[in-house]
């Protein structure tokens, strides 16, 4: 299933609706939902927040992958940014040194099983797989 979403946080509700539909259609393990929702939101929010030059919708594609799910997000008219190169977060730092910045991508990289990045013709495509027996 694929669907385009406007560059707005208000689309998060519609993305969840799409995810619910994919899980129901393919009988996917509901225990994967939270990680799928988290990774999809964090990557979508990152695109909306940091690519302010584009007016184009963001394309999300979801489908089954062996024992789990594969999700890709494609952004258009965008500079290259490979989320795998995001700087880490010191999750052991004391409270007064902690800031929320960077936590979203950190969680994505920690919680998905694999993540891939493609950049071509100013199109940025991030694909992650959550595949657990």
């Amino acid at each position, binding site marked *: 299933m694929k669907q385009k979403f406007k560059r707005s*946080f208000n689309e*998060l509700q519609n993305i*969840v*609706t799409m995810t619910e539909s994919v899980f129901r259609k393919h009988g996917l393990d509901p225990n994967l939902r939270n990680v799928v*929702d988290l990774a999809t*939101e964090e990557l979508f929010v990152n695109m909306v927040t940091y690519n302010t030059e584009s007016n184009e919708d963001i394309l999300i594609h979801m489908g089954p992958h062996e024992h789990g799910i594969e999700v890709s997000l494609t952004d258009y008219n965008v500079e290259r940014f490979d989320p795998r190169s995001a700087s880490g977060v010191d999750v*052991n730092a004391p409270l007064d040194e*902690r800031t*929320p910045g960077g936590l*979203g991508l950190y969680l994505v990289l920690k919680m998905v099983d694999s993540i891939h990045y493609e950049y071509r013709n100013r199109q940025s495509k991030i694909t992650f797989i959550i595949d657990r027996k």
Partner: protein
Amino acid sequence: MMFEIEFANDGIVAVDGRLDAAQAVKAQAFLDQVEGKCVIDLAKLEYISSAGLGVLLKTHKRIMGSGSGIKLINVNHHIHDIFRYSGFDKLFEIVPANN
């Protein structure tokens, strides 16, 4: 899908639904009014993203500045996983849900 945050009768802050980037402003506006020790009941929180974590972190730091802090109760295992990956289990007093 919705998100609600309110004071329960016992003064505990009760949240319900999904705390995502679209709802973080609402949660922050509510928690900005809280002074002193704050207990938040997460029994009905279905989901939290980094935006929601940011709200908790900002509020916790502000309240800690006056010598108190946030206690999170009835935390289900999905939410607890997020807290653990984030290192929040070392920053907050967390009471897991019974089931």
